[in-house]
């Protein structure tokens, strides 16, 4: 499959990417391209210009300190999955990065690209939302609760470039996903995080957009055991239904993955 024609430009800095973005309307940022290029090949996306930000060195880093793990937007999944620092600070986050796609995809795909794209079945949005991360851009800092606005939709505005995702370090956390056996995308993935001041639970893959489960959070705040969430079901009418699984099946998977995540974190 071949994409529509486009012009390719490579940015060496965030400032250069900003200038290029402003110069051409409808231009798009290219990071790892593991979703965007597939969409372009299917001709679902037709940007006239791609600005490649994957090689920007100032966006490629992992910094642990001050109670958080800060990851540059162009950092590939493989580097997060194999970072000893991330594994020590938030093991669940390193685990999550290591179960995205497959090894070849993890060598190319980036955290910024995954979060900006907000695919309903992407893994990173679950960690971003459950850990209450901050999405930093060239213009501002956005809280995770305000960032994911719907299917493939985010609070990002035109000309805005994600530069960093900063994850607060929780006391305990775990991510469990039920992967589609072919694509490895999450049929349902649940990230559970326990902080001093409360619990956050986020589910991906099951609905059109990543979402929190307040009933589970409240139950786990009283009793952090798998039993606490065993009888809490999410509303199937809000779940996705497709050839891989019905809405009811996905709703059930959210509860099952939540139980497994709590069991691992507890």
């Amino acid at each position, binding site marked *: 499959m*071949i*994409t529509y024609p486009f012009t*390719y430009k490579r940015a060496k800095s965030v400032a250069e990417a900003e200038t290029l973005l402003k110069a051409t309307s409808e231009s798009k940022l290219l990071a790892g391209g593991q979703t965007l290029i*597939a969409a372009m090949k299917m001709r679902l996306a037709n940007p006239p210009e791609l600005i490649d930000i994957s090689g920007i060195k100032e966006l490629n880093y992992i910094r642990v300190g001050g109670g958080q793990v800060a990851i540059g937007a162009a950092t590939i999944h493989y580097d997060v999955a194999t970072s000893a620092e991330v594994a020590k600070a938030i093991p669940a986050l390193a685990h999550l990065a290591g179960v995205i796609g*497959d*090894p*070849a*995809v993890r*060598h190319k795909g980036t955290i910024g690209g995954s979060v900006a794209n907000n695919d309903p079945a992407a893994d990173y949005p679950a960690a971003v939302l459950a850990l209450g991360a901050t999405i930093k851009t060239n213009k501002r800092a956005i809280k995770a609760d305000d960032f994911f606005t719907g299917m493939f939709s985010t609070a990002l505005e035109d000309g805005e470039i994600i530069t960093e995702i900063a994850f607060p370090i929780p006391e305990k956390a775990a991510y469990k996903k039920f992967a589609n056996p072919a694509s490895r995308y999450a049929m349902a993935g649940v990230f559970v995080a326990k902080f001093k001041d409360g619990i956050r639970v986020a589910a991906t893959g099951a609905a059109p957009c990543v979402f929190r489960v307040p009933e589970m959070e409240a139950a786990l705040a009283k009793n952090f055991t798998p039993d606490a969430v065993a009888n809490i079901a999410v509303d199937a009418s809000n779940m996705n239904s497709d050839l891989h699984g019905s809405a009811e099946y996905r709703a059930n998977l959210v509860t099952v993955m939540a139980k497994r995540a709590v069991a691992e974190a507890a």
Partner: protein
Amino acid sequence: MTAVSMTVNGKPVTADVEDRTLLVYFLRETLRLTGTHIGCDTSQCGACVVHVDGKAMKSCTMFAVQAEGAQVTTIEGLAKDGKLHPVQEAFRDNHGLQCGFCTPGMIMTAVDMIRRKGAMDRDTIRHELEGNICRCTGYHNIVSAIEDASKRMTEKVA
């Protein structure tokens, strides 16, 4: 058209390509290196896996212009001086192929995983192969071949 330069299997190459040219088409059609295959064309099957700067990547899901200045290795670049790469040897010895279509991608993925993980058990190999699909379902001998190769290669290093 954009002039793109990279090193493929140790040789410098330069060519004018359309920006939308996928790396796999550049390898197959411009350079006539047809060992890299296009299977699913949706980045799921892994028949197109090559190494870019030493890491396994799906050449159907990146543009040739993204590989500007990179070191690219394809299946054609593994054998040295007429001698098969140990992973190729192990695939032959273990009959790690049936129709052979997925084999180049399987071997490139195997070389990459052995580089990262060294000697592996079968379970690890199966997990590492999740981005490579064999439509003959011939996984048993593929896993045996990689297990064998990973042992041979790590013994040689030790």
